[in-house]
């Protein structure tokens, strides 16, 4: 059974203070790893897809990286509007089902 574990559960940063979120996964065969952002009471908003170890993707202050066992979401010089819960997910072998982690709740204080 696919497993996804995210850490830390919660992270408080000061504006401008860079940090990283971790997503560890155990899957039978990686078919991609997805990062989403979720604001309170809203649906997951797609950020990145990574398919192979060594791959990196960037969007504004966010950069996602992937190794064979984990993925990191690096946040550089975050702003208060980056406050959200960040979710990672992996598809099952059929691609039908995403297994999500518990998420990291990020708070960026001004």
């Amino acid at each position, binding site marked *: 059974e696919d497993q996804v574990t995210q850490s830390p559960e919660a992270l408080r940063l000061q504006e401008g203070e860079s940090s990283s979120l971790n997503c560890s996964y155990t899957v039978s065969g990686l078919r991609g790893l*997805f990062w989403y952002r979720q604001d309170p009471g809203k*649906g*997951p908003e*797609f950020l990145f897809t990574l398919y192979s170890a060594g791959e990196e993707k960037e969007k504004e202050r966010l950069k996602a990286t992937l190794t064979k066992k984990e993925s990191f979401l690096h946040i550089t010089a975050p702003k208060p509007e980056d406050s959200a819960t960040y*979710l990672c997910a992996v598809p099952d072998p059929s691609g*039908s089902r*995403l297994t999500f982690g518990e998420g990291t709740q990020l708070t960026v204080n001004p």
Partner: protein
Amino acid sequence: EPEVTQTPSHQVTQMGQEVILRCVPISNHLYFYWYRQILGQKVEFLVSFYNNEISEKSEIFDDQFSVERPDGSNFTLKIRSTKLEDSAMYFCASSRDRSTDTQYFGPGTRLTVL
């Protein structure tokens, strides 16, 4: 930019009543999904749907649940007899392809069962 839409945004119902949650997936997408998120818990897969039939369903998706694509644009989730534990956010998602394509999520319907 195309997006998944869901109605209603909030549904309140009495235990034992039937509810239908509606979704309009992105127009050129072929695969449709329902997930739920109980307050404070992680997002959980319910069911996937392709070519007018269920592709996969989770153990949560029992006989009380059904899905349908009644026309060319809507995708619905029906809960026949709601229970208190069905209270959750329900998210619809769609993707062009199944195997590795990105699933795009709607804003969700908050279902409250009293």
